[in-house]
C-alpha cells in the first residue's frame, strides 16, 4: 500500500490553480524526489500533504488515512522541514528539540537522549547551547532537519532541504537523507537535479500543478533520456571541428548538437546509427580526436526534455 497517495488533487488560490489534478503515489521506504521548476506547485503540494493547507478537491491519503479527516493522528507520525524553517530566536537549539519532544509526549530522559543525538546528527553539538537567533541559514536548515526527526517519523517531508547550504553542508545532509532509506519514507521537493540524482530512488516531475511523470530514477532515465555522445577535439584542428559540428545538425539521427570549446555534445535519436556513423564522419573530416565517449544520460536531460515538451504543449 502506498504511503502517500493523491488522486485528482486540486488547490486553488483565487483564480490561480496551484495544483491541477495531481496524481501520484509513493511506496514505503523510498526516497522520493519531487522535482519541478519554480512555481510548479511543489510547496503547495507539501503543505496540503502535511495538513497545513486544505485541498480544494481530490483525494489525499498519507499513511493510509485521509489527511483532512485525520490531520492530528497523522501529525504524530510525520516530520516536516519547511523551505525556510523559522524558529523562536530566543530558544537554544537544544531547547527547541526538547520543546518538540514535549509536543510528541516524550519523557524527560527520552528528550535528553534524542535531542543530543539529533544535535550530533545535524552537526550542531558545539552550538546546541547557543540561541537560534544567531544561527546562519545553513545551521537553521540543519536544525530544521533535526526537529523534523524528533518523533522518528514514518514519512519525512522535506521542502528544498539543502537549498541554503554550502557544498560541504549539502553533501552531509544529502548523505543523511540517503541514510534514512529503508527507515522511513522521504518525500523531498527540490529544483536541483543533481541532489535528486544523488539520493532519490524514485522521481516525480511536476509542472503547472500536475504530475508530468513518476517512475524509479533509472527507469525514467532509460525511458526518456536520449543517448548522448561527447567528442573532444585537439585544438590544432579547430577550424575543421566547427564545420564538422555544424554539418552534424543536418543528420537525421542527430537530435541536438552543442559545442563548448573543443568539446561537442551530440544528443542522438538513433543510437545504432550514431555508433556506426559519428566516429566515421569525424575521421573523414580529418579531426584529431582526444576523446570519444557515449555518456550516461542524466536526470537533467530527462527533466529538460519533459519540461520542454510541456512548455511546447502549453505554447
Amino acid at each position, binding site marked *: 500500500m502506498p504511503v502517500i497517495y493523491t488522486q485528482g488533487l486540486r488547490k486553488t488560490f483565487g483564480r490561480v490553480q496551484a495544483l491541477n489534478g495531481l496524481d501520484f503515489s509513493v511506496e514505503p521506504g523510498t526516497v522520493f524526489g519531487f522535482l519541478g521548476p519554480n512555481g510548479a506547485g511543489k510547496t503547495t503540494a507539501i*503543505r496540503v500533504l502535511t495538513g497545513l*493547507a486544505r485541498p480544494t478537491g481530490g483525494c489525499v491519503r498519507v499513511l493510509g488515512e485521509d489527511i483532512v479527516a485525520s490531520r492530528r493522528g497523522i*501529525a504524530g507520525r510525520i516530520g516536516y522541514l519547511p523551505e525556510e524553517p523559522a524558529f523562536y530566536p530566543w530558544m537554544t537549539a537544544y531547547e527547541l528539540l526538547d520543546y518538540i519532544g*514535549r509536543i510528541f509526549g516524550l519523557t524527560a530522559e527520552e528528550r535528553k537522549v534524542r535531542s543530543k543525538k539529533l544535535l550530533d546528527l545535524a552537526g550542531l553539538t558545539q552550538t546546541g547551547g547557543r540561541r537560534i537567533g544567531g544561527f546562519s541559514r545553513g545551521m537553521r536548515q540543519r536544525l530544521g532537519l533535526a526537529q523534523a526527526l524528533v518523533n522518528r517519523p514514518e514519512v519525512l517531508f522535506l521542502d528544498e532541504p539543502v537549498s541554503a547550504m554550502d557544498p560541504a553542508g549539502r553533501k552531509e545532509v544529502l548523505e543523511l537523507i540517503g541514510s534514512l532509506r529503508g527507515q522511513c519514507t522521504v518525500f523531498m521537493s527540490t529544483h536541483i537535479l543533481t541532489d535528486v540524482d544523488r539520493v532519490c530512488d524514485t522521481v516525480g516531475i511536476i509542472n503547472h500543478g500536475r504530475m508530468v511523470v513518476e517512475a524509479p530514477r533509472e527507469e525514467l532515465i532509460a525511458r526518456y533520456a536520449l543517448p548522448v555522445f561527447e567528442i573532444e577535439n585537439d585544438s590544432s584542428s579547430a577550424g575543421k571541428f566547427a564545420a564538422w559540428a555544424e554539418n552534424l545538425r543536418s543528420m537525421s539521427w542527430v537530435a541536438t548538437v552543442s559545442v563548448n570549446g573543443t568539446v561537442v555534445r551530440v544528443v542522438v535519436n538513433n543510437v545504432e546509427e550514431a555508433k556506426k556513423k559519428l566516429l566515421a564522419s569525424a575521421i573523414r573530416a580529418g579531426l584529431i580526436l582526444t576523446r570519444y565517449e557515449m555518456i550516461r544520460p542524466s536526470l537533467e536531460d530527462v527533466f529538460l526534455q519533459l519540461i520542454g515538451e510541456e512548455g511546447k504543449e502549453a505554447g
Partner: protein
Amino acid sequence: MIFLAALRKEIFGQWRSYRLLVVVAVFLAFGLLSPLAAKFIPELMKLMPNGKEIARLIPQPTITDAVAQYLKNSSQFGVVLALLMTMGAVAQEKDKGTAALVLVKPMPRSVFLWAKFAALGVTFIIGIAIAGAACYYYTLILFRAPDVSRWLALNGLLFLFVLVYVALTLLCSTVSRSQVVAGGLAFGLVILLSGTGAIPGIGKFLPGQLLAWGAWLAAGSKETAWPALWISVGIIGAALAGAWAVFERQEL
C-alpha cells in the same frame, strides 16, 4: 501535557525576550508612583508661582485619591500593555512560519491559542500583584493601611479588566496575519468599548465599570457591579471561542 509544554514555552519566551520584565516594571512604577503622586501633588503645586492659592483649593489628599490614581494609571497602561504584548502573539507566528512548524505536529490549535492567553494572564497577574503590593505599602506609609481583602478584590477586578483587552487583542491577532493590523483592530475595539461605555445606561454593563467597583471597594462602599463582571467574563470567553473558530479554519 501538551498544554503545559506550550504554556511553559510561552512563559519562558516572555522571560527571555524581556517582555515579562517590561510588564512588571511598568506596573511596579505605577504602583509606587500613584500614592506618591496623590500625596505630594498638592505640595508640588505650592512650589509653582501662585501655587499656594491653587493648593488651598485642592482638598487634603486621602486614601481614596491614592486608590483612584492607582486604578486610573494601572488600567490605562494595562490596556496599552495588553495591546502591545498580544497583537503579535498569533499574527507574528503565522507571518514568520513558527506557527506552521509547531502546528504541523500533534498540537491542537486550541492549545496553541489558549496557552498564549494563559501565559499572558500569568504575566499580567505577576505585574498587577507586584504593583498592588507596592501600592499597598506606600499607601500604608503615606495614608493608612487599606483593608487587605478589599485590596485583593480591587486588584482582581483590575486584572479582569486588563484580561478583557488581552482576549480581544488575541482575537484580532488571530484574524490578521500582520501584527500591525492586529494592533489597529484591537485599538479600534478599545475605542468602541470606551465610546459605548460613555452612553448613559450602558456603561454599567461594560468592563470599565469594574474599575468603578474597585474604587467603591477601596472607599468602603457596598455597591457592586456584578453585571459588568459577568459581561467581562463573557467577552473573554466569546473572544477566545471566536479566535479558536477562526484559527481552526485558517491555512498556515
